[in-house]
């Protein structure tokens, strides 16, 4: 295998959401990455990263759970791609915690009974597509530009912060999703809420907080002129899709960016994925002759 091909081969960490309520993100991410020539090898025996709940209960637990997955992936020598923003964040925090502190690493080696030495690292899916594959390659595969589709790109918290641990270059104004939307012919409008919080893990215990935050995001998206949200996080997608209230305005469809890329690449499977959304995107897509 030559180095170019090796460069586009990754260990795949889907995470729990992509295997259940966000299955359409799993399917669309794999389809789009496949079309872009990226080869994925699912990490054998992967387990939960602990998400929000582990770090709320125990710092050590929040490092140990992702550490196990880093250790499982390392022997294959492939960098990990984690499409879920939460998994990505927890894997990165674990990496940087153990690599910057030998005592932490010793503690994890003992607790997990496996070891990770920093030979591989974790990327989010935007980094893989924008940095490793390139926007030009995406543009070459567009057969049906998403003309007329006005969206706001919503990155949420976990792809952006904390920038020191994640290595984010522009935590207040990331542009990767905006650039990808432009590449597939959609219009990604500027707004000031790209990295605001959706309420995340409060969805069950304090849904009132999520509703307050989600409705504000919706209002601001409409004010910017958008007809839909685009996300790269299953928790953001779920909260936005399920918690917009209709009392104070219309509910906007919430796309995974990979679903829109797949539509622009002419993939027929996309309609099946989109049928799982709570706020149906079909009226908007039909109005714009996208489907």
């Amino acid at each position, binding site marked *: 295998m030559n180095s170019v091909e090796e460069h586009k081969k990754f260990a795949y960490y889907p995470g*729990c*959401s992509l*295997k*259940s*309520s966000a*299955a359409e993100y799993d399917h669309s991410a794999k389809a789009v990455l496949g079309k872009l020539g990226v080869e994925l090898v699912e990490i*054998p*025996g*992967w*387990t*939960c990263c*602990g*998400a*929000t*709940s*582990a*770090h*709320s*209960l*125990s*710092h*050590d*637990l*929040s490092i*140990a*759970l992702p550490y*196990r997955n880093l250790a*499982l992936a390392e022997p294959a020598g492939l960098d990990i791609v984690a499409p879920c923003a939460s998994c990505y964040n927890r894997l990165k925090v674990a990496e940087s915690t153990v690599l910057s502190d030998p005592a932490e690493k010793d503690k994890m080696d003992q*607790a*997990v*009974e*496996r070891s990770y030495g920093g030979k591989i690292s974790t990327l989010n899916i935007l980094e893989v597509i924008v940095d490793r594959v390139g926007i030009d390659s995406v543009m070459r595969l567009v057969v049906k530009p998403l003309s007329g589709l006005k969206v706001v790109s919503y990155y949420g*918290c976990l792809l952006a*912060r*904390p*920038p020191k641990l994640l290595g984010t270059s522009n*935590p207040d104004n990331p542009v990767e999703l905006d650039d990808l939307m432009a590449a597939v012919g959609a219009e990604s409008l500027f707004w000031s809420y790209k990295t*605001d*919080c959706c*309420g*995340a*893990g*409060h969805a*069950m*215990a*304090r*849904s*009132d*907080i999520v509703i*307050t*935050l989600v409705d504000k995001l919706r209002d601001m998206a409409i004010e910017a002129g958008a007809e839909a949200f685009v996300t790269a996080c299953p928790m953001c997608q779920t909260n936005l899709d*399920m918690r917009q209230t209709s009392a104070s305005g219309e509910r906007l469809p919430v796309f995974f960016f990979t679903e829109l890329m797949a539509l622009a690449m002419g993939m027929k499977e996309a309609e099946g994925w989109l*049928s*799982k*959304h*709570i706020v149906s995107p079909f009226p908007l897509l039909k109005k714009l002759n996208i489907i």
Partner: protein
Amino acid sequence: MHSKSGITNIEADPAFKTELESRGVRNLTKCMQCMRCGVGCPVAHAMDFTPTQIIRMAILGMKEEIFASKTIHLCSACNTCTTRCPMEIDVARTMDTMKEMSVESGFEPAERNSVKFNDIFMNVVRARGRVNEPLLFGHYKMKTGTYFDDMEIGMDMIKKRKIKFSPKAAGRDEVRKIIDRFRHKI
């Protein structure tokens, strides 16, 4: 305790700050109350103390008040505060640390359902190695008695076939050992 003069005397625990530091919280005493964490917090509207106030209270050793607060449980870990702090205090990590200490000490939390949700989440991961959403939602509703909350959303999820029983993970025995080693009983 209120004195005649109206000045409140607080029961401070001087060891609290040291305890936070020993658990990895850095730069705490550098806080100059600039309030960037408080004004940027997306959940401040639902909190009883702003993050800025909580940091001050931590320095003063107001452990009981912090453990009894809603704030530590309502932090959504969005890390806006951590990113903006000019003194490089990891405010979100500090919130997590205090939440962990409060759970560890058996303190009755102001946001009981939030703590229960996290505990049930960990029970499901302990049993299966991965999150299983139907089990998580079902157990949460049983343990909190919130059967009728979000009925409409539940029906939507069923109609759209969003609810799936994902299989157990092969590494669940290892996950169980990890969780049993680090989790505090609530």
